[in-house]
């Protein structure tokens, strides 16, 4: 397992797209927040694009190995499919966390505006969201095994989230179910941090089970 994690970590750090996306996220957010008073609320409101970009990168990172059949070499080396999957989830989650939190942390420390409590809540919310996104990426990649298709499905999922959370009829209910929608509810105290955490753990478990079923059943 240690060697698999090392391998994934090496792939992540040597991936030019990973660093490009970090730069892109900083650039986009800097433009979006230019000349504005940055607060936790405004950060949470305008981070949707970052969340989607990060999710698409995570999906492509995992799907790449399936598409280019590199996963076969890992299996032939005697590693179990479950171990390979967990190593991938772990490193994808790490990559996603770095990309997701790079702008809030940098801007938080530069501006020195966030109180400790606010920043703590914000980081916990986005930590759990990052974990959810890595499980989502794993499941999409395991089902479709193609970068294009899995990224396309991730885009559709996030757009459905956006439309349903903004819908006037079902928006409030959907915000209680969909992780991205729940962020605003937690910050506005409609939902407690514990409820948010439990909901995301349930999502993670469901996605993990689906990914495990897919990886066990699939032929490479």
């Amino acid at each position: 397992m240690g060697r698999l994690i090392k391998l994934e970590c090496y792939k992540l750090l040597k991936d030019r797209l990973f660093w490009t996306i970090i730069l892109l996220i900083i650039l986009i957010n800097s433009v979006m927040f230019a000349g504005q008073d940055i607060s936790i609320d405004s950060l949470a409101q305008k981070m949707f694009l970052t969340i989607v970009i990060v999710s698409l990168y995570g999906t492509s990172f995992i799907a790449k190995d399936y598409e280019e059949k590199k996963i076969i070499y890992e299996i032939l080396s005697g590693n179990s499919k479950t171990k390979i999957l967990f190593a991938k989830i772990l490193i994808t989650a790490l990559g996603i966390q770095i990309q997701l939190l790079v702008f809030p942390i940098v801007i938080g420390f530069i501006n020195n505006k966030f109180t400790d409590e606010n920043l703590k809540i914000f980081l916990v919310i986005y930590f759990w969201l990052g974990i959810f996104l890595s499980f989502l990426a794993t499941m999409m990649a395991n089902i479709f095994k193609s970068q294009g298709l899995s990224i396309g499905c991730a885009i559709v999922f996030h757009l459905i989230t956006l439309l349903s959370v903004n819908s006037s009829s079902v928006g409030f209910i959907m915000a209680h179910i969909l992780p991205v929608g729940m962020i605003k509810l937690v910050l506005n105290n409609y939902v407690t941090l514990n409820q948010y955490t439990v909901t995301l753990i349930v999502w993670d478990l469901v996605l993990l089970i689906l990914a495990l079923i897919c990886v066990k059943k699939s032929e490479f």
Partner: protein
Amino acid sequence: MAKRLIKVELYQIAKSSMFFIMVITCCIMSFFFTSSDYLLEPIVQNTPNNVVGIYMNSIADVGVALIIIAGCYSAYLFGEQFKQRTFNLKIGCGYSRTQLYLVQCLKTFLIVGLLIGLAVVVGCLKYGIADLIKAVSENMGYFIRSLIFIFFLAFAIVSFCLIFAVIFQDTTKTLIASFVFLFVSCYIMAAIVTNFLASGNHSSAYGISEGAIMKFYPPYLWRWALNPDLNSNQLILTLVIALIWSVVAVSIGCYIFKKKEIK
């Protein structure tokens, strides 16, 4: 010679199961998110209180999300041809690069327009097929006009994604770049533009033009052109602007495609 190329592309679409999955996905999205609440808080100016009002607001709301999905799908189809090296074979068969690019543009034009147009109509069906048919027959002019604008304005926006496909020649990078471009141009920029126009605050970015320049921005025109009270000059101007943007994007893409070494 290009006729055969068009035939091949149309055959590929007709036999592609993914195209039908996309059609179904777009229709389901439109069906679920089209709402009669549009009549209470209309997005489009001068919205009538009937199915036509729901139809025009559905284009303005769900239509924008559908542009992103259809645009990413078109960029994916184009990017896949680089990845699968289909272009190398086609060039080997004697087709010019200009022909290849223009046929891809035609394919994108048809796919994007069809996906959005069909999905929006399906979304309105939940308010009664008979009511919709009656509304279409009574407002035939408006429906034809809106469909023409769907095809041309959507292509004016999406045609830039084809440039990303040519530059990157890779599905992942193309899809991420297309999504960021479409999301920023359709949601973020269009929202900023609308706020500027609504509040009359043109002091910063658009000071010189006092808002007039926004009328040349296709994602803004996507909603603006749905207003049923526009006169014929405004409609023609909208169409001309969409055509200019499309020609610019296609020319840039075609130029890069001709100069770029294919992997």
